[in-house]
């Protein structure tokens, strides 16, 4: 799965997510990616999320919307991502990762899986990582 979130100069946010799904999936199986609130969500009032990971468990907790719910309650993108991913792990034993922005340009790339390749560009600087702590 691949995905992106962005904030533009006018403060608009957007998300995009695309996938080939799971290896050797059943014909016709559809995961979280095309489902609003699961594979992604974007609302100028709160922020934007694109997710990746165990599709079925992401759908059970509507991961992207759950993160934005936590941000609505005042949490930062990083805190909201941590809380929602921890909930997904504890409640439905699912692992995954997310990229998140808020309308001010605060961003986060978090994952509960072993790895997630990610990159962020802001103020002419490029940040990137693959393992935890990078």
């Amino acid at each position, binding site marked *: 799965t691949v995905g*992106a979130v962005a904030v533009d100069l006018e403060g608009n946010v957007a998300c995009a*997510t695309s996938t080939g799904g799971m290896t050797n999936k059943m014909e016709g199986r559809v995961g979280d990616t095309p489902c609003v609130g699961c594979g992604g969500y974007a609302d100028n009032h709160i922020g934007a999320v694109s997710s990746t990971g165990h599709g079925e468990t992401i759908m059970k907790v509507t991961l992207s919307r759950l993160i934005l719910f936590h941000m609505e309650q005042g949490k930062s993108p990083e805190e909201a991502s941590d809380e929602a991913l921890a909930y997904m792990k504890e409640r439905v034993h699912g692992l995954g990762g997310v990229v998140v922005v808020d309308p001010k340009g605060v961003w986060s790339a978090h*994952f509960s899986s072993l790895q997630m390749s990610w990159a962020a560009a802001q103020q002419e600087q490029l940040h990137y990582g693959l393992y935890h702590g990078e």
Partner: protein
Amino acid sequence: MLPVVVVHGGAGHIPKDRAEISYVGVKEAARAAYSILRSGGSAMDAVVEAVAMLENNPVYNAGRGSVLNVKGEVEMDALVMDGRTLASGAVSAVRRVANPIRLARLVMEKTSHLCLTAEGASQFARTMGVPEVPEESMITDYARMRWKKNLDPDTNPMECQTGKMG
């Protein structure tokens, strides 16, 4: 306002010998999308460009390089959402389209629907003049190797899927 773009290339298992190329693709996509934002482009333009680049990159599980279903075929899903209006567009189980993310954007912009699936999505792509690509062109040797490995009757299906997420 601080424009920003953040991209990911998936949370599935990345073997050590593919780590470097996995970094390169997400960095290139973030750079390209950021240049759109810097020149006044919209957040929607930026995220679609970033994801289309990753779909075109055979390293990632989307577009060219997608994993295969049990029949050895490519079925892809994609979603876009615009934070200004909460408009969104999606396609699911779509085949023979190089960039499902661009098709999802067309669903958002050109229809009153939110998601088109399977043959309906393909019909819509034809209506929109989106070229059909041969399925073979989307299948990489790596995807075929993983598919065959998982078909092995001795393979534990749980082990196959653990850590190999979409």
